[in-house]
């Protein structure tokens, strides 16, 4: 019984992690940026959805849409404020651009977080779930919302796969992640490609944020830990490898769930961090790391 519950809960939380990590990896793989404002973008989505529900009293579907839009805007702002100016800057030497972008995204993330706290306080908020009620899976009572979360996450990941592998635009983005100069030689402006990628990222982070808000709730303080866990997953899986992130998300998700159930919820993040230490020492490029 307990085993089944762990299996189900673990699956849902891992799916959520997987979605967030996929977005994070996408940005790194295509534009080489480790976006440290990731958690803040997700929180923005969740809080916007909550505000749409509590303040504007919209229905849950509209709330989700508002959250998505908020994340899209936040992601585009991240690109135009903390990434593009540095990439095009003539004052910053080439070798240092990566560090500057990292610091800039971190600062921007703090700014977003503080804005959210200022307008909406830093109390925890839950978004009204789209799907309510309870369903019984093999004898375990599971909230329908949890099932919904897992299904939506995987559906979105599937759609993303289709987009990247079956559409013209998606293939261009994939090609850009392999060889930016190559796509330029074929007549594509890299800036346009980056804008598309950040927009896709905004949508992914938005969906993940809204689902998280419905599933577990967020507060402005969640931004840091969310970035940290997405980041840990991506490092574990291997920077730039989407399949690596998916696998790592499940490893981390299940480790956390097992710990929470079998030892104590307070220690849930420890085993994953210990695993991270081992990986950093033994195989720093992660499970399926490429770059």
């Amino acid at each position, binding site marked *: 019984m307990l085993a089944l519950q762990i299996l189900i809960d673990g699956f849902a939380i891992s799916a959520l992690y997987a979605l967030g990590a996929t977005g994070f990896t996408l940005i790194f793989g295509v534009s080489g940026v480790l976006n440290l404002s990731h958690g803040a973008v997700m929180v923005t989505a969740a809080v916007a959805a909550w505000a749409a529900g509590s303040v504007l009293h919209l229905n849950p579907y509209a709330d989700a849409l508002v959250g998505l839009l908020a994340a899209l805007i936040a992601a585009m702002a991240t690109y135009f404020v903390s990434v593009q100016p540095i990439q095009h800057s003539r004052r910053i030497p080439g070798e240092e651009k*990566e*560090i500057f972008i990292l*610091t800039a995204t971190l600062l921007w993330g*703090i*700014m977003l977080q*503080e804005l959210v706290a200022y307008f909406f306080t830093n109390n925890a908020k839950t978004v009204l779930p789209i799907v309510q009620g309870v369903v019984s899976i093999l004898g375990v009572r599971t909230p329908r919302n949890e099932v919904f979360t897992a299904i939506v996450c995987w559906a979105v990941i599937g759609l993303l796969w289709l987009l990247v592998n079956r559409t013209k635009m998606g293939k261009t983005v994939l090609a850009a992640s392999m060889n930016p100069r190559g796509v330029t030689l074929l007549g594509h402006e890299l800036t346009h490609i980056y804008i598309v990628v950040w927009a896709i990222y905004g949508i992914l982070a938005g969906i993940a944020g809204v689902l998280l808000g419905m599933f577990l709730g967020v507060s402005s303080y969640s931004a*840091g830990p969310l970035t940290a866990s997405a980041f840990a997953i991506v490092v574990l899986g291997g920077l730039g490898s989407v399949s690596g992130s998916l696998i790592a998300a499940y490893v981390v998700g299940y480790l956390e769930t097992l710990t929470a159930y079998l030892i104590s919820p307070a220690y849930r993040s420890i085993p994953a961090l210990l695993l*991270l230490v081992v990986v*950093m*020492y033994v195989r720093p490029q992660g499970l399926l790391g490429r770059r």
Partner: protein
Amino acid sequence: MPSRFRSPLLWITLAVLVIAATLPWYVSAYILGLLTVAYYFGVFAMSWDLLFGFAGEVNFGPTFLIGVGAYTAGILNSHYSVELYLCVAAGALAAVVAGFVLALPALRLRGPYFGLTTLVAVLILQSFVVVFADLTGGEIGLTIPDVLSINAGVNYWIALGFMAVSGAILFGLAQSPVGLILQASGQDPVQAGALGFNIIKHKLAAFIVSAFFSGLAGALMVFYMGTASVGTVVDLAVGVQVIVAAVLGGRRTVLGGALGAIFLIVAGEFLRPTGELATFIVSSVALLVILFFPNGFLGAVLSRGTRS
């Protein structure tokens, strides 16, 4: 070799230090307290710049070393009633060991992986503090019975003196032959190797020096503040402030770190009336500086000198 810096910079620095030392006689205890914290932050930033500006290694988690130093000192004092200065020494030593353990695998990594390792180290320390709450005080923090002094003026002078001495040592190192080797190793490791320098040895040494000063400053600071908590010595946001202070002041200047730290803390204080928005405003200013003045205060001043 130091002749270039003998004149204006040295005398200006001495003059500023003398003026700063007289502050306790006519400035309120509140402002003294503020500057005291700023001076410790100055040492954090200067040690970070030695590692980044010279060895070329970006440490994204300076608070790992600061936190290890601070908590070691705090725990020894709080749980085992060890004498204050012994705790501080132990804190510095612990930070050195931690720095060594972190640097050894990290220096073998290239590109973003080194930075990542330093970030991960902070996350781990943070979890450690939260989990072993009975030892560390968890999220509430550790209360530390001993203090350096109860007099605001004395605390201020201790901090000022410490910053001045640390600054002199770090700056001197940076300008010395050892500093030059470090700079060459950071800028072009392949060429430095071909010139006969074992760069890993030098970078490791830089890391340990940086760890020593960070840990020492962290340990001293908790004996000033009377508490040690995640929010003040471990949190990533604190680490970002250290990095921003060093960048604001000017990378590769060492002394710029002190300037940047003082600016940040004082500016943060001026913005306190805005309440929640204070952090937002400081972060946005820092972001603007990074985008438009990446060389920072001292950096811009010094580069005008190189061009002549």
